[in-house]
């Protein structure tokens, strides 16, 4: 009698909404296949209702997350890097299986994703000093401008590189106190959904980052038309979908930033501009006098 059995335990890949791992309310699924067309897993095919629930959770989480100190936000992002580092091998395996990457390429993408997390962890208590100003007005007032989070930001993640692309767009959005609803890579959702486990174990409050898998054509219009989403980072790389996003965004004057990043490994795929895009400048006046 064998006490150790061989049959592997396969993971159920779920959506990540409000800090919980949930199945789509629609009960639908999409099979995800490897580069060699073998079945890797069945993932939830998220629905409009899932998306709306994610937006609701993101909205509820936003003021609390924005209210955390910059120091704490930085520590949490750094913790995410630690968690990803600890699971680097399993992420590399997912990338190899899903996209047929060589071990070296898969490892490089995971390393780059970890580095990106560390990069943005360090921004949390610095971007405000670089984007804020004290304005020398001509009258007797103290007048200053500070960056504040835009609110709930929808992210249409790139298809490839699925892991590094997701991390590259999620970090600059959340580091400034926004919360995010991400539609992850449609073709390669596994590493993104696995990243939810990193988020869930990094003290990132539930609802700050919500990950939905499914079909972009079906989900994106609901994201861009939703009245409680303030902005969209559009890195989907589909011109027709981008035009539709830009049009639909006008319904509530969403800020839309379209990204066409050739090389996510480049230093140009990170930095202050990515943070600034999803901040609002608030200017406060107060009289000077006795």
């Amino acid at each position, binding site marked *: 009698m064998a006490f150790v059995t061989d049959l592997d335990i396969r993971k159920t890949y779920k959506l990540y909404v409000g800090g919980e791992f949930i199945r789509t309310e629609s009960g639908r699924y999409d099979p995800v296949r490897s580069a060699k067309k073998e079945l890797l897993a069945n993932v939830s095919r998220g629905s409009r209702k899932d998306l709306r629930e994610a937006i609701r959770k993101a909205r509820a989480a936003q003021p609390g997350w924005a209210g955390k100190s910059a120091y704490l936000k930085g520590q949490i992002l750094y913790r995410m890097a630690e968690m990803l580092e600890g699971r680097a091998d399993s992420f590399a395996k997912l990338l190899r299986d899903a996209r047929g990457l060589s071990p070296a390429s898969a490892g490089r993408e995971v390393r780059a994703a970890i580095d990106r997390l560390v990069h943005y962890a360090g921004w949390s208590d610095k971007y405000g000093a670089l984007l804020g100003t004290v304005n020398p007005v001509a009258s007797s007032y103290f007048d200053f401008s500070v960056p504040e989070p835009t609110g709930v930001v929808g992210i249409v993640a790139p298809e490839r590189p699925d892991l590094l692309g997701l991390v590259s767009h999620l970090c600059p959005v959340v580091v400034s106190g926004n919360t995010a609803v991400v539609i992850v890579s449609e073709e390669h959702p596994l590493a993104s959904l696995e990243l939810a486990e990193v988020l869930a174990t990094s003290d990132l409050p539930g609802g700050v980052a919500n990950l939905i898998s499914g079909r972009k054509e079906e989900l994106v219009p609901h994201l861009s038309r939703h009245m409680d989403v303030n902005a969209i980072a559009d890195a989907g790389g589909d011109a027709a979908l981008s035009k539709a996003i830009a049009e639909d965004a006008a319904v509530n*004057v969403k800020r839309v930033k379209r990204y066409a990043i050739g090389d996510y490994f480049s230093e140009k795929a990170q930095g202050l501009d990515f943070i600034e895009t999803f901040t609002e400048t608030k200017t406060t006046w107060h*009289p000077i006098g006795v």
Partner: protein
Amino acid sequence: MSTTISDKESREKAARHVEAERPALEFGAAWDYAPAPESKDHVRLEERYGLFIGGRFVPPRSRKHFATINPATEEKLADVAEAGAADVDAAVRSAEEAHRKRWSRLSPAERGKYIYRIARLLQEKSREFAVLESLNGGKPIKESRDVDIPLAVAHFFYHAGWADKLAYAFPRHGVSSIGVCGQIIPWNFPLLMAAWKLAPALACGNTVVLKPAETTPLTALHLARICQEADLPPGVVNVLPGAGETGAHVVNHPRVRKIAFTGSTDVGKLIQRALAGTGKRLTLELGGKAANIVFEDAALDQAVEGIVNGIYFNQGHVCCAGSRLLVQESVAETIIGKLADRIATLRLGDPLDKNTDVGAINSKAQLAKIRELVACGVEEGAALHQASCRLPEKGFWFPPTFFTGVAQSHRIAREEIFGPVLAVMTFRTPEEAIEKANNTPYGLSAGVWTDKGSKIFQVTSKMRAGVVWANTFNKFDPTSPFGGYKESGFGREGGVHGLRAYVELS
């Protein structure tokens, strides 16, 4: 806890008692000022204005003109050319050529010197512009003289200095100009909005097609004359009066690289949609429904002045007007009493009279909109308070007005009225004030009145609005970024932040 409540109750009782005892203000003849009109003889109006294209005033290819009037008298001031599609095309081509051949090649310092010239010329002619602004727009001369024109000058002066310093504003980036900017401005601050748009665009090396508002084209056309006098290269600034159709031609012209629009949220959304997928850059400065929050520990008399300035400045034709007053329950009666007294002393009438506080409503259409919403406020059950001032027979007028007993669901509490109409609501706790203040799709501005510093920082940081005035209201400066959150638009005007809208970074 119960002591607190009874304290509060007794405070309220005392307040009511004071109110009941408060005699009606009686000024007798002390407030009858003799008329003090600013003379108009310094302003030379043309009978007919052309379009300003390529550095010259030209007749419109559309062959259309429209009458521009004085809203205080309904008298015609001049005929103004209306730009059609062919005119817009000519202006855009002229701007494109000027950008390619002259403006973008000029040394940045030289560009700055042209803008300094414009600032100085405008300063020299400030009286002409102040009178013209009041004649064409209906705003009190003391506002056009002391606010609009000096601030417009300051905007040119400030941005002139940026022209050769853009590399400092955007470190680690290559900075270049965008090209032809289409700029569409509203009628509430005609010259000031032209300055907000032109000055940063020119400083960053762009050329401009500016469309002033239909009802207030004159100061922009006189500004075009200043561009001539300053020897600004032809085509760098083009001014095309017209209505919405002209604006649509500017927005949709394929060679315009950037649109800057200030106006209503409805039109802003149309423009955002129209530009989708075109690659054109866009900034929007749209409507507002600002909360002005007065706490019980505020300096109440100063707060009342701030409330009056917040909503009756420029007849309430201000996108950032403090049109929702949120007053803490314990001082509500006091504030409302003081406010009623204060609006009784506001002088409504001839915009050119130096004593006038409240001028004419900008247009017949705007007056109709204000009347409609005020009627709706009454119908929905709010209590109307109105200054009993005499309205002139000719022209468009609306007395300073506020509503009490307003619910958040009332149209007067939700919609931008853009007139001298204030909706008064109350709150008990700071949390409630913040909740109510942010309960709007707009997010342009907000006001907070309290003498407690820590409360100011707490409440101002919770306002979802781009400009927050603490213990003041409606203050502007070219060094200070202005612009909205949420449906009040995106992008900033003024300060280092405002330059971002007019540069291409690499």
